[in-house]
C-alpha cells in the first residue's frame, strides 16, 4: 500500500511528517542565531588567537543543544481530533495543550518552500477567530495527510456551526474548494509590473547607504584635497558628478531589486474566487496559498503610481482581520490588476448598489498650510545653516528635498477625499499616484477623534477609524463634522446585526 493511500481518522495522537524535524531545526537555529549574532560577529572578526578554540566549543555546544532540542520538540508534538476540537500537545520542558474548537477555525492554508517541495510535504496554517493567538501552524505534514486533515476539519466545522442557529452558519460558511480564476499573471506581466514598482521607496534605502559610503570616502579625500590646495568650486564639481553616478547606480539597483522580488513572490500568480472568498496562489521558491473569506475581509484598497498609471495597472489589497495588527501576511496583495479586475472584486464583495449616492468631501486646506509651513521653516533653517558654512551642495540637495516634501503635502491635500453612505466608507488619497480605501461601516471596531492644540484653535480635528485590519484616518476636518460622522457611524454600527467577522 502506498503511503498516500493511508486513511487517517486523526482520533489517535498523530505526529507531523518526519521532515518536520528539519524545519524545526532550521527554525531553532534561526532563533539561536538571532539571539547570539553579536557574539558570532565577534567570533568571525576576531583575529585568530588563543581564545578562538573556546568560542568554537561554545558554538558547537549551542548548535548541538539546538539540534537535540528540535528533535525532542518533534517527538513531543502531537495533534488529534476529539469530539469538538482539534487538540495540539507540545513543549519540551513545559507541556502545553492547545484546544481549538472546530467552529473557531476560519481558514486553513497550505504553504510550501523549496524543502517542502522536495519532500512533498506542506506547511499547514490554521487561522482562528477571536483569541489572542490567532494563528498556528504545523511545520510539515505530507500532502495527502494534510488534504485529509483539511477536509475533515472543514467538514467538522461545518457540522459544528450548523448545529448553532442559522445566522451564524450564514456568516461563517465553510471554505468552498471550487474556485474560478479571476486573473493569472504571466512572466511578461510580472516583468512589466516589476518595472513600474515604486523604485523611489526601495531605492531610498540604497541611496542613503551609498551616500554614507561616499561621505566616509569623501572625508578621507578632503585631507588630500586640502594638501593639494584645491578650491571649493571643484569640490562641488566632483560632488555633482558623484551624485549623478550614484543616481544612475541607485536606479539600476532598485530596478533589479524590485524586479527580482516581484518575480520571486508572484511567479505563476493565480487569483481565484470561490463561493464565499478569494484565494491567491503564487511564488517561485516559496509557494504561497492564501485564502481570504468574504466575512474576514475588513478593508480593501487599491492604488497606483505615475508609472503604473501609464500602463494602466493597479495594486489591489484585501486586508483581513487579524489579531496581530496589520500584519502584512494577512493581507492579500494582487499586483498588476486592471481597473476592470478591481471593479469586479469590489462589486463581488459589496455589490454595485452599495456605492450609490456617495458625495465626496475634501479635507481642510490648513492640512497643507500647517504641515507645509512647518516643513518649509525647518528646511529654510537647514538651508541657511548650510549656506552659512558654505556647504552649497548640501544646501541645494536640501532645497530639492524640501520642494518635493512640500509638493507631496500639497498633492496629498488636493487628492484626499472622503465620502460615505449608510453602508460604505470610501477614502481617496495619494500624492503622485492614486489610492482608494473602502470599508463597510459595520466592520468598524471603534472611532476616535484626535485634536492638536493648533487644530483646536481652528476648530479642526482628525478622525481615526479602527478596523480589525488596521486603522484609517481622515485628517483635518471640521470638529463638528467629526462629531456628526462619529454619531452617524456609531448609530449605523450599533443597529447593525451583521457579524463583522
Amino acid at each position, binding site marked *: 500500500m502506498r503511503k498516500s493511500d493511508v486513511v487517517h481518522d486523526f482520533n489517535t495522537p498523530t505526529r507531523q511528517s518526519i521532515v518536520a524535524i528539519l524545519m524545526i531545526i532550521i527554525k531553532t537555529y534561526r532563533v539561536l542565531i538571532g539571539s547570539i549574532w553579536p557574539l558570532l560577529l565577534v567570533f568571525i572578526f576576531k583575529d585568530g588567537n588563543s581564545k578562538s578554540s573556546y568560542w568554537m566549543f561554545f558554538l558547537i555546544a549551542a548548535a548541538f543543544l539546538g539540534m537535540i532540542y528540535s528533535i525532542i520538540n518533534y517527538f513531543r508534538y502531537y495533534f488529534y481530533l476529539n469530539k469538538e476540537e482539534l487538540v495540539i500537545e507540545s513543549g519540551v520542558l513545559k507541556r502545553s495543550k492547545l484546544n481549538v474548537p472546530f467552529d473557531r477555525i476560519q481558514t486553513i492554508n497550505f504553504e510550501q518552500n523549496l524543502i517542502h517541495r522536495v519532500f512533498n510535504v506542506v506547511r499547514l496554517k490554521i487561522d482562528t477567530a477571536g483569541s489572542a493567538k490567532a494563528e498556528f501552524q504545523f511545520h510539515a505534514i505530507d500532502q495527502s495527510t494534510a488534504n485529509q486533515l483539511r477536509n475533515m476539519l472543514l467538514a467538522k466545522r461545518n457540522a459544528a456551526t450548523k448545529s448553532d442557529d442559522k445566522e451564524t452558519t450564514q456568516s461563517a460558511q465553510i471554505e468552498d474548494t471550487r474556485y474560478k480564476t479571476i486573473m493569472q499573471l504571466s512572466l511578461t506581466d510580472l516583468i512589466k509590473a516589476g518595472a513600474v514598482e515604486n523604485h523611489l521607496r526601495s531605492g531610498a534605502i540604497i541611496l542613503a547607504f551609498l551616500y554614507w559610503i561616499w561621505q566616509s570616502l569623501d572625508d578621507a579625500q578632503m585631507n588630500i584635497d586640502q594638501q593639494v590646495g584645491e578650491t571649493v568650486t571643484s569640490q562641488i564639481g566632483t560632488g555633482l558628478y558623484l551624485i549623478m553616478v550614484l543616481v544612475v547606480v541607485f536606479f539600476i539597483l532598485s530596478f533589479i531589486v524590485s524586479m527580482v522580488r516581484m518575480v520571486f513572490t508572484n511567479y505563476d500568480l493565480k487569483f481565484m474566487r470561490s463561493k464565499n472568498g478569494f484565494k491567491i496562489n503564487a511564488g517561485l521558491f516559496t509557494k504561497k496559498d492564501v485564502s481570504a473569506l468574504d466575512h474576514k475581509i475588513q478593508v480593501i484598497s487599491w492604488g497606483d503610481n505615475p508609472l503604473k498609471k501609464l500602463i494602466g495597472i493597479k495594486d489591489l489589497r484585501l486586508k483581513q482581520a487579524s489579531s496581530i495588527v496589520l500584519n502584512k501576511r494577512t493581507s492579500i496583495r494582487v499586483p498588476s490588476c486592471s481597473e*476592470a479586475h478591481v471593479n469586479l472584486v469590489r462589486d463581488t464583495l459589496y455589490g454595485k448598489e452599495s456605492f450609490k449616492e456617495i458625495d465626496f468631501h475634501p479635507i481642510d486646506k490648513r492640512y497643507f498650510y500647517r504641515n507645509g509651513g512647518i516643513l518649509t521653516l525647518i528646511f529654510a533653517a537647514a538651508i541657511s545653516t548650510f549656506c552659512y558654512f558654505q556647504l552649497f551642495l548640501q544646501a541645494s540637495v536640501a532645497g530639492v528635498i524640501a520642494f518635493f516634501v512640500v509638493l507631496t503635502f500639497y498633492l496629498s491635500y488636493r487628492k484626499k477625499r472622503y465620502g460615505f453612505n449608510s453602508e460604505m466608507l470610501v477614502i481617496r488619497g495619494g500624492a503622485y499616484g492614486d489610492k482608494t480605501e473602502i470599508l463597510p461601516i459595520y466592520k468598524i471596531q471603534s472611532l476616535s477623534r484626535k485634536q492638536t492644540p493648533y487644530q483646536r484653535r481652528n476648530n479642526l480635528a482628525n478622525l481615526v477609524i479602527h478596523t*480589525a485590519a488596521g486603522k484609517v484616518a481622515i485628517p483635518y476636518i471640521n470638529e463638528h463634522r467629526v462629531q456628526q460622522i462619529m454619531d452617524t457611524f456609531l448609530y449605523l454600527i450599533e443597529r447593525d446585526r451583521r457579524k463583522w467577522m
Partner: protein
Amino acid sequence: MEEKEEILYHSEVSFKNEQLDESTLPTMAFLEYSPLEKNLLKADLIWTILFFSIGILILLFLQYYIRIEWLLNFGHWILIGLIALSILSLLVVYFGFFKKSYAIREKDIIYNSGLFWRSSVAIPFNRVQHCEVAIGPIDRMFELSELKIFTAGGASSDLTIEGLTPETSNRLKDYIVNKTGIDEEE
C-alpha cells in the same frame, strides 16, 4: 469582463440605504461626562513627586558622595532641569486629570483625555471582544481600579480607563459584558 462577471459567485449582499437625518441622530456632543475619582489625581501626583525625588536624590548622591568630576561642575544645572521638569509634569498631571472623563450610553462608551493633544474614543458595545478589571498594588492603596476594554481593532483601539472605584469598574464591566452577550444572542 462582462462574461467574467456572470460566472463569479456573488457575496451575500444585503443592502439598505435609507436616508439618515444627521440632526435627529443621537449625538455624543451634549452628553454629561463623569469625571474620574479624585484619588487618581492624588495617586498620580504622589507618584510624580516620588519619581522625581528619587531622581534628585540619586543625582545628589552621585554629586556629593561619589563626587563624579563632571557632575561637580554641571550637577546644579541638571538639578535645576529636573526640578523644572517635575513642576511641569505636576502641572500636566494636575490639569490633565480634569480633561479625563467618560460617558456610558445604552450602546457605547466614550472616553475623553489629553491636556494638549485631545482625544475622545468611542467603542460600541457590540464590537467589544472582552472586558477586564485590573487592580494593581498601588491601585489598592488608593481604592482604585482600571477598566480595560478590548476590541478586535488592535492595541491602538483598546481602551483603558484608570481611576474608577473597584465597585464602579465591576459594575461597568458587568453592564458591558451583559450588553455584548445580549447582542450575540439576538
